[in-house]
């Protein structure tokens, strides 16, 4: 073999070796830190990843306020460890109001690369968690979402897609929990409300996101279980200039917009309300924000708001007081003291509980609070009958909360106003 050929062969072998090392290296970067060796030092980092731009900004800020309040109550300490809180934005200027996939992946990788990471709180949107969960799972980083409701993140119940939820857990163990009931419960709550309101049939629009399309499937199932006729379930294109022709299809006496504000759902509700002036309108927690409810902030007009009811997995202060929930009362009192706001956004209490649950898991494992595996096992296997601001609940083997109460909200003065509790059970 000539010298030139030898050199070429050597180069190829070196290249192959380099690629193998690089591939193994990148894999190691994501999985090594997940072992049970423990984080060195006395500082543990908790990352929060939420959309801080666009229509969900208000809700995200409420979550962060709640998280910071819980952390402040603990004086940023758990045992001998100091807790460092890092807030990340999973949205972008071009894609605000929701989790941008590339940005979300970047946030998750940032948490993975930080050796001091002990918890990741997020995402706000289920579609974002689909991206961050597998990345964090490989690194064995425990994750808690304050707001995800899509069923496929934790179970293969009706409404999920094939391959879910296993595809989100490449490490083949659960690392994810959420403090809000999943959409099979929310769908049942929406259908229960519609039945109570005398609806004979319903037309659903969904925004084609993981959350919106999944919830729409759950609403169909719940409607079937409660004998409510479904006239249609249509996807909506975020980029469409309007939905007037589509809205003209809505002949049912009730309408559900299964989507989030950022997917142009103000326009959707306006157009449906105009096309069918007598239809009762319903929205899920994805539109429970001022960007949707307040006309002065670009939300639906007041007359459309007067016809709209919204379900959110949180209850009003009065309801918590009625239930003698001391933790909730403490939250509301401390929140007002800290931020001067006596009626916080419904998501503030979820942020508060998300951080409280994370801190409780760390506290429970004592000196092993720097051990991701110990913390993960505590969160997923030993969170039982926890007395929290949301009520007494457990985290089941899938990572779901055992809470099932949903709150029904009306729109008053441009804000979601708690009306009553909806007791609902998932269909099937």
């Amino acid at each position, binding site marked *: 073999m000539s010298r030139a050929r030898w050199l070429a062969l050597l180069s190829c072998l070196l290249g192959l070796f380099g690629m193998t090392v690089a591939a193994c290296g990148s894999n190691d970067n994501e999985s090594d830190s997940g072992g049970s060796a423990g984080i060195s030092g006395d500082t543990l980092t908790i990352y929060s990843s939420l959309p801080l*731009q*666009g*229509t969900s900004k208000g809700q995200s800020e409420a979550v962060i306020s709640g998280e910071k309040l819980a952390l402040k109550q603990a004086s940023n300490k758990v045992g001998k460890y100091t807790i460092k809180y890092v807030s990340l934005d999973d949205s972008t*200027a*071009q*894609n*605000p*109001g929701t989790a941008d996939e590339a940005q979300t992946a970047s946030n998750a990788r940032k948490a993975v690369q930080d050796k001091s990471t002990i918890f990741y709180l997020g995402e706000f949107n289920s579609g974002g968690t689909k991206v961050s969960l597998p990345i964090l799972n490989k690194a064995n980083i425990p994750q808690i979402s304050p707001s995800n409701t899509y069923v496929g993140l934790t179970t293969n119940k009706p409404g999920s897609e094939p391959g879910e939820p296993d595809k989100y857990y490449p490490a083949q163990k659960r690392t994810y929990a959420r403090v809000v009931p999943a959409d099979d419960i929310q769908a049942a709550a929406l259908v229960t409300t519609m039945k109570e309101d005398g609806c004979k049939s319903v037309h659903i629009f969904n925004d*084609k996101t993981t959350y919106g399309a999944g919830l729409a499937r759950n609403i169909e199932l719940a409607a079937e279980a409660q004998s409510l006729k479904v006239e249609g379930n*249509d*996807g*909506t*294109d975020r*980029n*469409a*200039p*309007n*939905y*007037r*022709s*589509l809205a*003209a*299809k809505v002949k049912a006496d009730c309408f559900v917009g299964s989507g989030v*504000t*950022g997917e*142009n759902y*103000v*326009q959707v509700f*306006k*157009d449906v309300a*105009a*096309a069918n002036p007598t239809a009762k309108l319903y929205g899920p927690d994805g539109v429970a924000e001022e*960007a949707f409810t307040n*006309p002065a902030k*670009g*939300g*639906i*007009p007041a007359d459309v708001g007067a016809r709209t009811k919204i379900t959110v997995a949180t209850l009003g202060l009065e309801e918590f007081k009625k239930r003698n929930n001391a933790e909730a009362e403490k939250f509301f009192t401390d929140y007002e003291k800290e931020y001067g706001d006596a009626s916080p956004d419904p998501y503030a209490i979820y942020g508060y509980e998300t951080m409280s649950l994370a801190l409780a898991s760390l506290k429970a494992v004592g000196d092993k609070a720097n051990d991701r595996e110990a913390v993960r096992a505590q969160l997923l296997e030993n969170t039982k009958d926890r007395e929290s601001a949301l009520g007494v609940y457990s985290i089941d083997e899938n990572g779901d909360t055992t809470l099932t109460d949903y709150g029904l909200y009306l729109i008053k003065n441009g804000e979601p106003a708690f009306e009553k509790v909806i007791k609902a059970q998932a269909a099937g």
Partner: protein
Amino acid sequence: MEAASVTSAPPRRRSEAVREFLSQYGLIAILLILPVAYGIQDLSNDGNLNRLGNNLVEGLSNGAILALIALGYTLVYGIIELINFAHGEVFMLGSLSAAALYTTFGLTPNTGTTGLVLGLAAILVLAMLASASLNVMIERVAYRPLRGAPKLAPLITAVGMSFILQNVGILWIGASQTAVPDLLGSQKHLIEIWGVTITRGHLLAIAVTIPLVMLLTTFVTRSRLGKAMRATAQDPEAARLMGINVDTTISLTFLLGGLMAGAAGLISALYQTSIWYFQGFSAGLYAFTAAVMGGIGNIRGAVLGGFIIGVIQGISDNRIGNDWTPAIVFVYLVIIMVFRPQGLIGEETREAG
């Protein structure tokens, strides 16, 4: 622009004439498939054509906005054979300017009729001027220096301008869809004819678009500057030798396209009652499609294309599904391009020969 055509028709054989006949009238048949099929369905189901009529009205009013935007694409392409990808964003900024002027003029849904009419007329003029100035500036800064460059250079510059202007939109109003006051009561019913509802928004879109298109057509066909535009479109070098200031004529073309985009911007803000930094991208894409479908370079073609796409959208949204509409529109475009690459009433441009 029609004047872009260079036709020296050779004697045609019979088979060519038959093929041309089929390409022209076969396409008309294809275009009529949706309305005819759904019309038959409506007659058998409901015994009337009310639903189809409502689809057509909705489509025509949406199409009117597209037509105004499409004119900008077609004018510019007709004269310098550049696809001005930034044109959708010129429309978007026209819309944002118009919405901002609501506040300046103190217009609210409670403003009286006279105040509203006068205020909106003033805003229409200002929004048109703002978009026109922007379009002329873009031409002067980004395209004119590239006049002699390879065609890809201005094309990619246009794409770049589009992104720059989108970001201007984000800086101005943020990146979320923003509701604006419904000054006219856009969806309020005005009149019902044979079960077909005409709203204020429908009337506005048609009532503003048609006179503007007529004015533009008259200007291009009758005025001296219009003749200069047509001469430049036909042969810029010959036009220059005949004493026409080609650069000024090109600027005039951008000015006219910008005026139409500004008008479309105000109509869109009044009609949709929301504005968005990305509205120009999607509307621009459909408008460009409309210009190509009708025959790019042809004013009547752009208007026809706009109305056709609007109607396809209206029917598809209502019958097939909003999420399928983009695919349906582009299926139509592909079919038309395959059988009639020059567009429905387009003629061959300088480039195409």
